[in-house]
């Protein structure tokens, strides 16, 4: 039993931290977020050169062959830097789905380009009525010759505007809401019939609504087995949920340290507000919430890493528990950071609000606390 990072992991961590330190001050991030692209292609190339884009992929396709802990290390540091480049959308979701469900040809076609930073991807899963149910979709792909015709609309597609290609979850059989009958399809984002309209989220991301109007797809657009797309999709979503929780922990650490620092310098009533015991005890509460989140993250990551030979119900329970904890702790840490910063924390100018907005977004992606707690309860007490 040990909780130390390997030497390689420590180097990875330092490498991301150094990038943030050197290239990601508040001002440059603000400009990035306001830009049309929403992120920096130059940074993306740097990620490729530093090898980060290869981390989760198998060595057979040129990847680093990293595990859940390696991804966690990267995400936590990206979180501390509030990095907006679409690592989650392109590498973990798009790349992750191709690695998980794709055949050798698809993997070779796409993953080397993801690793080289040559392609942007997205995963289009959400529909207006889905809320948090991945299976509750009505976008449909009907057979047509050897291939498919795709119709429907996806919403809040992360990185949907910049993406060159999309993985789309579509119904090829079965009833609305059924896990069976969902297929994953690789769609060229510029194909005829694909229409995208972009807008921003509070965390600075550019996302898109994507309409598919009689989009014709060849047989090789199918990722994995027909009708059996739910299982790989859920598995990838679980991995990415873990990664997002690691990002959230990084954000919480940053918010806590920034807040502690601020209270030491801000004076009211003739003294630093850090000297007020009521505030001290609240900062202890946020510190403890952060440490408890770290513990559950380690627990969930270790059990995910070992889940092949481990109890997979326990692994699921750990993941659900973690997302619940991120929801609660994230709320507490975010609220206290804003409140203890006072008026200045409520302005767009200070970074603290932007960290809180990203934290709020992560709390919701792939199911909020209530959703995961209900799943946890189902596994535990039903």
């Amino acid at each position, binding site marked *: 039993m040990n909780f130390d990072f390997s030497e390689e992991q420590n180097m990875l961590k330092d490498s991301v931290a150094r990038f943030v330190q050197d290239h990601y001050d508040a001002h440059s991030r603000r400009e990035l977020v306001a830009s049309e692209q929403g992120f920096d292609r130059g940074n993306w190339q740097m990620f490729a050169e530093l090898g980060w884009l290869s981390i989760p992929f198998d060595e057979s396709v040129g990847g680093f062959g990293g595990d859940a802990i390696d991804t966690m290390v990267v995400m936590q540091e990206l979180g501390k830097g509030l990095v907006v480049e679409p690592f989650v959308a392109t590498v973990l979701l798009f790349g992750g789905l191709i690695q998980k469900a794709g055949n050798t040809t698809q993997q070779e076609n796409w993953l080397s380009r993801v690793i080289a930073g040559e392609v942007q991807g997205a995963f289009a899963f959400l529909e207006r*009525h889905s809320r948090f149910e991945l299976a509750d979709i009505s976008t449909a792909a009907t057979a047509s010759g050897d291939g498919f015709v795709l119709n429907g609309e996806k*919403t809040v597609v992360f990185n949907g505007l910049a993406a060159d290609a999309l993985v789309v979850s579509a119904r090829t059989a079965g009833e609305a809401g059924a896990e069976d009958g969902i297929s994953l399809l690789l769609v060229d984002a510029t194909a005829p019939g694909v229409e995208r309209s972009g*807008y921003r989220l509070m965390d600075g991301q550019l996302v898109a609504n994507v309409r598919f109007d009689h989009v014709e797809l060849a047989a090789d657009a199918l990722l994995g087995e027909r009708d059996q797309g739910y299982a790989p999709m859920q598995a990838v979503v679980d991995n990415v949920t873990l990664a997002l929780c690691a990002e959230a922990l990084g954000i919480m650490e940053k918010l806590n340290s920034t807040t502690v620092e601020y209270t030491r310098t801000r004076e009211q009533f003739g003294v630093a507000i850090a000297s007020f015991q009521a505030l001290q005890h609240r900062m202890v509460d946020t510190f403890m919430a952060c440490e408890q989140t770290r513990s559950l993250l380690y627990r969930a990551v270790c059990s995910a890493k070992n889940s092949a030979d481990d109890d997979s119900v326990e692994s699921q329970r750990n993941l659900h528990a973690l997302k619940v904890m991120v929801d609660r702790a994230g709320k507490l840490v975010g609220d206290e950071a804003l409140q203890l910063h*006072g008026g200045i924390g409520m302005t767009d100018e200070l970074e603290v609000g932007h960290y809180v907005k990203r934290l709020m977004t992560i709390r919701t992606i792939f199911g909020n606390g209530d959703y995961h707690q209900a799943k946890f309860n189902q596994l535990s007490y039903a």
Partner: protein
Amino acid sequence: MDTQFSAEDLAFRDEVRQFFQENCSAELRARLASKKTSREAQVEWQKCLYERGWIAPGWPVEHGGTGWTATQKFIFESERTSADAPDVIPFGLKMVGPVIYTFGTEEQQAKFLPRILRSDDWWCQGYSEPGAGSDLAALKTKAELDGDEYLVNGAKIWTSGAHLADWIFCLVRTDSSGKKQEGISFLLIDMKTPGITVNPIIGLDGGHSLNEVQFNEVRVPAENLIGEQDKGWTYAKALLQHERTAIAGVAGCKRVLARVIAYARAEGGLIDDPAFQRRLSDAEIEIMALEYTELRVLAALSAGTAPGPESSLLKIKGTELQQAVQELWMEVAGYYQGVLPDADGVDHSGHEFGSKACISYMYGRATTVYGGSNEVQKNIISKAVLGL
């Protein structure tokens, strides 16, 4: 003890309800909601209330008030929020107006009050400073008497609507020799006076309502001083308690909750989720209680008692609950909680409910800080009520 409405109260309720139905049209509300037309529509609405004689229910009758009982005021406020009618902008009608009719000279009353009632002047509040937030009395903006003018230098911050205002009421330091609560004066300043610069502050909601206001050798006629020089803290304090009572916003909180419930009913059966129901009622039950806490304060007020430390309780609980229902709004919106409208306020996502949730949530974070942070309110209750 009795909280039933009398027949007269019920008749009054019908009268008020009818007024809102007839005058607060959907068209007006649409103009109020749009950034470009909101100011003009707000003035139009306030003038409509003025014509009806209902613009200043809290004022004494002799200055243009309504003479309503506490119950009537409560009914008016409930009906207003039920009708989705906007509140009046508080700075003139609820803040400086009462200070002027209580502490101002007859000349000041004659000059300012009618223009406030008619919404001819738009006011803003110059209290907080960069170094004096919750510790308001630490303010440093200086006013020195120079002949029959004050020479004002310094800066105010978090000034809502300063970029739109005609006048600002300021706390300024006229003496630094004594305790920090002493030597503060209450001054009315024309925003067009040379030497005033207004710098916008963009909030977490991405919008511009707050400002920093700089005063550089600004000359203010001495006749614009309220009451005695160096006694401004006394006038401001009385006002703060009224402000806190108003910040509680119980009726508005009920209205937002009702909207959240309606959306949860309409969209995908979230209303049937026991966990969500529980979150709803956690908030609703506290709001039901706070509604009666407010009534108790109102009843005491109408019996002639000035709002005391209970105003701090109302402020703390009221703002916590506003934030709680804003959070529910976000939760109901799910993935759409974070979608943003563009810079002109136009929604391109197709999820307007979500973008409004986000703006309301982010804007609402400030309520537990302004009007004296909730921590300061707790210090006040601790000292004044519990004697600690």
